[in-house]
């Protein structure tokens, strides 16, 4: 192993932020669902995968048609992914999770794993997977690279970063400042009491799933467009788990925490590669997870609790 190349550190940190933005976007959905339902929605990563596919099929449908402004196309892809994923999220909640509302948490978790496997393997029948398709580079109108103080920054990834931060603030505003958001926090705090106080719990949970899944859809669309990720039905598995780690890292249920957690994860992964241990990149997320669970199970910004 050679010595570290400190000159590359700024670039690696920026790379980390860019990668982290993607994790953060998925982590927001995780954190919302967990915050309200206390459920690790394992299928969340697969909803993200569906979002990538929806974006791909939209792009295939309208790309290279005349009278289609590329910016409009991107917007359309974003909307279709978000709406499609929101509907899927709602469907999953209604069919798989709602009947188990009063079941032990483990049962719900196993169901979530089952739904995740079902989306991955059932998706093979529905989506084009062989060979894995990807969104054409020309769809991405923000593909130029800028040079900022010697650090290369791709425009599209800057957009992803910006959108993530904006969405985080919107979400934070929604949860803390609006009536529905207050209801959401009430449900998160105490299910039964909230119901007694006149909060329509089912509706709130539905809204949570809609928002969380829509965010995953947005993440999927932006990721697939910006990176040219080849799409397989398993593409959501690892990003999903890593995003969950990001959510735990930031303190699950905590919206800014999820985003910060995502950034830390992205930077950590980049630093591992920078240190010459590229083969262990995927293990970092889990190492971070285990360390954080042992030292501060509530996460960086969560309330410290003794046991989780």
């Amino acid at each position, binding site marked *: 192993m050679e010595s570290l190349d400190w000159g590359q550190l700024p670039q690696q940190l920026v790379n980390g932020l860019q990668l982290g933005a993607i994790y953060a976007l998925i982590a927001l959905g995780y954190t919302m669902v967990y915050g309200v339902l206390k459920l690790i929605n394992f299928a969340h990563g697969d909803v993200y995968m569906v979002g990538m596919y929806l974006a791909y099929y939209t792009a295939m449908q309208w790309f290279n048609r005349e009278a289609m402004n590329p910016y409009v196309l991107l917007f359309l892809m974003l909307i279709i992914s978000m709406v499609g994923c929101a509907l899927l999220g709602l469907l999953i909640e209604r069919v798989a999770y709602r009947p188990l509302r009063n079941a032990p948490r483990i049962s719900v978790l196993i169901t979530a794993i089952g739904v995740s496997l079902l989306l991955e393997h059932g998706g093979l029948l529905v989506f084009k997977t062989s060979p894995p398709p990807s969104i054409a580079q020309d769809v991405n109108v923000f593909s130029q690279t800028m040079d900022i103080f010697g650090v290369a920054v791709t425009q599209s990834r800057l957009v992803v970063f910006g959108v993530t931060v904006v969405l985080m603030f919107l979400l934070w505003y929604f949860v803390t400042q609006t009536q529905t958001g207050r209801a959401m926090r009430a449900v998160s705090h105490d299910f039964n009491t909230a119901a007694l106080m006149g909060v329509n719990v089912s509706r709130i949970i539905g809204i949570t799933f809609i928002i969380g899944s829509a965010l995953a859809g947005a993440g999927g669309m932006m990721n697939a467009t910006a990176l040219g*990720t080849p799409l397989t039905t398993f593409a959501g598995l690892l990003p999903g788990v890593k995003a969950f780690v990001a959510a735990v890292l930031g303190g699950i249920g905590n919206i800014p925490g999820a985003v910060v957690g995502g950034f830390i994860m992205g930077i950590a992964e980049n630093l591992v590669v920078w240190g010459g241990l590229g083969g262990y990149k995927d293990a970092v997320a889990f190492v971070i997870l285990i360390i954080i669970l042992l030292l501060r199970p509530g996460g960086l910004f969560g309330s410290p609790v003794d046991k989780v």
Partner: protein
Amino acid sequence: MFHRTRFSGGALLAAAALAGILGCNPTGGSNGGKTANGGSEDPIKIGLIASLNGELKPWGEDSMRGAQLAVKEFNDAGGLNGRKVELIVEDTASRPEQGKTATEKLLNEDQVLAVLGEVASGITQPAAEVCQAAGVPIIAIGATRVDITEIGEYVFRACFTDNFQGAAMAKFAYEDLGLRRVAMLTDKKQPYSTGLSDIFRKAFESFGGTIVAEEFYEGGNIDFQAQLTNIKAKNPDGLFCSGYFNEVGPIARQREALGLNVKMVGGDGWDSRELIQSGGTGIIGGFFCNHYHNSEDRDEVRNFVEAFKKEYGNEPATAMGALGYDAATILLDAIKRAEKIDSKSIRDAISTTKDLKGVSGSLSIGPDRNAQKPALVLEVKKDDFEPYKQVPFFVFEG
């Protein structure tokens, strides 16, 4: 202990599971037990194992189609004096342990006389061990790992080895592209990629070049900026990506975005048109080593591509279509020449294959049971791959 609780749910699900197994359409089973493979009117049974599921599906599916096409043509032309050949296909799901059971199933249940496949070395390894132990010849379709054919005298292959492929690309990079400082990106999850990188490193260094960096990722990763940033710092003039096209595409895009302006070079894992889509402008001008190309100007290639199109509606998407076809051709030719129709005689006939006209070039089985064929370097253009140069067969001892 079964206590007095309602057991209905249990019975229900057990019944469901059993109904699932029973659901095997009874008419689909064979007519009461195994049929012997001996009678002169019965078809000659050969087997094929392929990754029809999982991450290697694009290649596995093509290899199956190619082999099926060859068998169909053989039967349409009258078979072996009127006796047909039946190809039984089993899925390996891209997993070695499934490859083993698939092969055992073919050998023991279907009593095949020879086996074709697999496209990946890691899956061919256990399959070949099974075949060697049973004394049934196996012709690997896309297993390029060097030591596969060292398992025994019943193991052959229709493709070139990594020893040749890696050395050919190293030679091409050094001599034709004039590269001297090359960085490598290796997929740590794929034995194919790690093996190819090793050979390339050895060969390139033996020609006098330098490997300035080797970075790693895992198949399924999406972001490679960290590795590329490291590589950029080493200031190379070439980038060798030994992985599959799934990751090479995004690598190419991100390489360009980072301003790492080097020539990209790779192995036959690049071989899919999707690479052009996922790689965008970043991949254009890259070179990779392949077994043949659909647009090559040879009769065999033209006929094959035409027949393939007619049968399946599109051109073979990867070279495994042609290699599957060639592997089946070698086997069918051997069946024709064999003294008797049994595994031993077929093996002996395969080992004496000489100058058979195949899609991927003239097929001869060498003393090490490998096919000795040239490699074709393809250049990635905006719309398609284009043959750039043929590298004749040579022996590189790594």
